[in-house]
């Protein structure tokens, strides 16, 4: 990870947020370079939504700093070049779609009305329909049109694909990726469904229990890791413990995720480059040691 701040769309240094019940986010330091599509991954309660709320300025950090396109969110509200689509896609239910778009126009100086209209039309949503009558997929498309109508440099989506059918998921991602292709917009999207991220995200921020466990360019991360599969050895796998992210044994076989070249010199193993999903799952499992081994294996299936 580089330390330059100039090219970061989002940057956190020692970022922390404490609620009454405890720390939701702690000691987070990472950088999301501009032009990337980043997956924000973590279990429920990992701090994903808190991180997004801190970025928009809806919440203030308890400690550390967060910078959006070089600026700390503060009194001036959300950074003008940041668009945020919350999980519940808040839209006034009694507005018509046309009224929602006109509100977007009135509230946002850089608003691209023709573009927002086109996105809604492409989604096949009737402009005269009231928001309350739309399906989940249609509501997402309208909310996305409002977010993209601002022509943001940074788009943050909290679980954008949750409760969408497969066709709507594909269409939403196509719309977002087309915007990336056209403008080089940076995207941060959180999701539980890691398979949705494969091929979409080229950057990963993995949160667990309020801390960043893994961050960086997906290809670099994959190149830095190997999935080793071999026979289970009575004396243990014998790999350097500091390089082992996670080791799991099933019957006669052992599967170990190793980082930083820890696989060099080991014999009798089959080496695979992990997929993004395998990598993220191994880190998520190893970050929750309180789970018994048996459930850990079930989550892989």
């Amino acid at each position, binding site marked *: 990870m580089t330390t330059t701040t100039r090219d970061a769309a989002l940057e956190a240094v020692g970022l922390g947020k404490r609620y009454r019940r405890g720390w939701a986010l702690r000691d987070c330091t990472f950088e999301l370079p501009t*032009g990337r*599509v980043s997956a924000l991954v973590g279990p429920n309660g990992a701090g994903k939504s808190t991180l997004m709320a801190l970025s928009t300025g809806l919440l203030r950090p308890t400690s550390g700093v967060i910078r959006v396109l070089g600026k700390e969110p503060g009194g001036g509200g959300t950074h003008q070049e940041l668009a945020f689509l919350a999980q519940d896609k808040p839209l006034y239910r009694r507005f018509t779609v046309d009224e929602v778009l006109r509100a977007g126009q009135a509230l946002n100086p850089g608003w691209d009305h023709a573009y927002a209209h086109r996105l809604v039309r492409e989604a096949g949503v009737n402009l005269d329909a009231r928001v309350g009558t739309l399906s989940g997929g249609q509501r997402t498309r309208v909310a996305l049109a409002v977010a993209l109508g601002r022509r943001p440099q940074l788009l943050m989506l909290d679980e954008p694909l949750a409760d969408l059918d497969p066709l709507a998921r*594909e269409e939403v991602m*196509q719309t977002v*990726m087309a915007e990336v292709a056209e403008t080089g917009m940076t995207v941060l999207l959180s999701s539980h469904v890691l398979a949705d991220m*494969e091929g*979409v995200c080229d950057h990963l921020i993995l949160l667990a229990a309020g801390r960043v466990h893994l961050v960086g360019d997906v290809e670099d991360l*994959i190149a830095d890791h190997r999935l080793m599969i071999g026979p289970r050895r009575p004396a243990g796998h014998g790999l350097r413990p500091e390089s082992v992210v996670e080791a799991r044994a099933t019957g006669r076989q052992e599967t170990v995720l190793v980082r930083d070249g820890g696989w060099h010199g080991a014999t009798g193993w089959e080496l695979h480059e992990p997929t993004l999903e395998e990598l993220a799952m191994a880190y998520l499992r190893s970050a929750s040691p309180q789970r018994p081994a048996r459930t850990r294996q079930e989550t892989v299936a």
Partner: protein
Amino acid sequence: MIEFRIDRRSGVATYLQLVQQTKHALRLGLLMPGDRLPTAKEVVAATAINPNTVLKAYRELEREGLVEPRPGLGTFVRRSLARPGAAEDAPLRSRLDGWMAEARAAGLEREDVEALFKAVLDTHY
């Protein structure tokens, strides 16, 4: 024009799938010198993958001298990969054909042969 198919569950990096499918089309003669590859935006519109991935795949193909970008026009095929060594009547092919027949006669199933072939392939490439 070539149409890419992305298998998100294959475990093969997406950019590599694009590279492999392009090369495959070049080998089979489905893509010929002078043909234009789809733009990043066209690929994204069809597959919902990250456009950076498409550009990365095209850079890789360019690095291998297979395609060239022409500013403002797109990315074009420079040379074909249809090789004489892989043709129906090439000696390499007939020797592999003979080996396959032996493997079958020895009682190996298709999957045995695939595993064996892949293992040997991996030691050489």
